């Protein structure tokens, strides 16, 4: 279960608030200034992100992992701080993960895979160990957490990576909100998105 905290302030989660990447996020920050207020009032817990800052990771290892993440997600624009967080959390869950990630990166290079579109059906994907490593990395970036959620219990092995930066929201960003954020105002929902015919 979550560590008991003093009664006066029990609501700090392990991770800090999210990286400001989306326009909606920036807007919200601009409007309310609430994140800085939140960060000031919420004491950071003893989570991995706080306990192991990105600087603790060897720069070269981090650089390679960032490049691996870019390849596996098919995205150039990934946040380097989030790369560090993904690497830290996956290593925390599996101590051999850094070696597995290095091995995956080398296997992709050997197979001449420079883009994720060439990965499906490749020998690298057909290798169960490499596939597991690749999916763990892709999953963290798309879902914004590591681990496996369990329902109806207070704890599980999941760890927070990002919310508004989760890649799963990118393909639908023009049609639906990232929950808790808003667009359009009351009753905008009676009309379909403008691009419906192309969907």
């Amino acid at each position, binding site marked *: 279960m979550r560590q008991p905290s003093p009664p006066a302030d029990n609501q700090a989660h392990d991770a800090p608030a999210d990286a400001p990447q989306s326009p909606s996020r920036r807007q919200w920050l601009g409007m309310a200034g609430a994140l800085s207020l939140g960060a000031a009032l919420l004491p950071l817990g003893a989570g991995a992100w706080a306990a192991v800052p990105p600087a603790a990771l060897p720069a070269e290892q981090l650089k390679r992992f960032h490049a691996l993440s870019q390849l596996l997600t098919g995205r150039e624009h990934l946040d380097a701080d989030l790369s560090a967080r993904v690497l830290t959390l996956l290593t925390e869950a599996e101590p051999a993960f850094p070696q597995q990630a290095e091995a995956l990166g080398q296997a992709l290079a050997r197979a001449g895979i420079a883009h994720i579109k060439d990965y499906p059906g490749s020998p690298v994907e057909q290798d169960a160990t490499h596939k597991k490593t*690749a999916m763990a990395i892709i999953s963290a970036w798309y879902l914004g*957490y590591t681990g496996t959620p*369990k329902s109806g219990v207070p704890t599980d092995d999941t760890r*927070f990576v990002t919310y508004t930066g989760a890649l799963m929201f990118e*393909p*639908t960003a023009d049609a639906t909100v990232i929950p808790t954020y808003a667009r*359009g105002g009351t009753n905008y*929902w009676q009309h*379909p998105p403008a691009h419906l015919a192309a969907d």
Partner: protein
Amino acid sequence: MSIQYDADVIVIGSGALGSNAAHELAKAGKSVIILEAGSRIPRWKVVENYRTSSRKGNYNDPYPNQPWAHTSYDPDYLENTGSFDFRPGMLKLVGGTTWHWAAAAWRYLPNDMKLKSVYGLGRDWPIDYATLEPWYQRAEEALGVSGSDVEDQSGQDGGKTFPPRSKPYPMKPDAVTYMNQRFAEALEPAGFHYIHEPNARNTRPYDSRPACAGNNNCMPVCPIGAMYSGDTHATHAERAGARLIPEATAYRLEKGAGNKIVAVHYRTPKGEDVRLTARYFIVAAHGLETAKLLLISEVANSSDQVGRNLMDHSGSGLVFLAKEPVWPGRGQIQQGCFLNWRDGEFRKRHSAIKHSVGNAVPNADVTRRLLAMGVTGPELDRRIRHDAARWMSISTVYEVLPDPGNRVTPSSKKDALGIPGLSVHYNVDDYAAAGREVAYEDYRKMVAAFGEEVIEDRTGWQNRDHLMGTVIMGADPKDSVVNHECRSYDHDNLFLATTGVIPASGVINPTLTGVALSIRLADIIRREI
């Protein structure tokens, strides 16, 4: 010599029901103390907790879970001994569990309240719909309910407003989502009638809260407070003069002369014990906790029914991909239903059924499924968009019947204050199981009319978090805990403000009814003090 009291009325529990009762009494000039086991948390903090949670499907996660005020998701606090893991998403904080409901605010039908006399099953309510109607109206005005004034909410498309209303809804319904327009059109030929779900979510600014802007996060927290939650009336009660004491867990109701309840004892997180006296007591501590408090206090149980007859609307679900893009996730997380099986002769054979259409942004479910299938790269992005535009999620609930064997009792395990936790024994009955077979046929029809691919149509029984029956209301003190006023048959100054009084479950979310009964019992107490 007159007796001195700490308050006219002490309310145990600051959720929607307790806070509405407290507010009515404080407005009338009575001195009121509200005890709340949990803490007071501002909305922005819950929102930040949600945004930084790694388990966003866990609706209790952004809320406190304290060693001295556990949520229901703590397996050591709520244990199960029956065939079903009965685990409603109960919270403990100022405002209670309506912090994360979806705000469906239905009225029962007249026949729901006469189940035994009309269909020969279960139990009748000791009051009828017409008696309760004025308080339904007041509850809708308190919560700020938007709804249709013209629909037949029995789901039969009877062409007239039903159940009857004395006044219009406080707010007009919101516009039907594009998804629900298309789904309803497709199902109409198969005989399904789409019904707007009345809900406590603003469609215009109301009671100092804004109109819904479609933040699509009614559960686990509305970030802007457009959706009603019990903290609204906790605050209203305080402003009307009530004293709210958070982090005060009631653990004993004390009996005195004349079978009156004379005091409540509560314990703080530091282990300090406090005794407070009052003329009247209202226990409004959630359907499970209210029964537990009565049992550990050894009060109000001459009928031996306290904790028994536990009912949820045990549920099931259907997920499928629509045959065309409809884009769920635009608007609130739910807004309409199919209620063809809400009332009729069939209730002699199987449970009533409600199908709600979900409207949550589905990206997490969609993406988890695709990742499990090993989809990657540009195809993953393409499929996320394709499937998210077509993700249809139906949440079905079934009526259940009161069974004294389904019950909550104090657990042998204790919390950090030394107070027992909850032990639940629950089996889903054959009546609901017979209803589920009918729902499966509906699922087939829905997919045939609008589907491309079934994702899941046999979920097993699911929790629906609608607590009923545990302090059952009835006309006979031998088999009932409270009378039609929600007054204990054993202690005439003890009232129970909880959906746990509901003796016949129907298929509608019971909170509005609980608030109506709470305002009504406050009126009764106000007249007697």
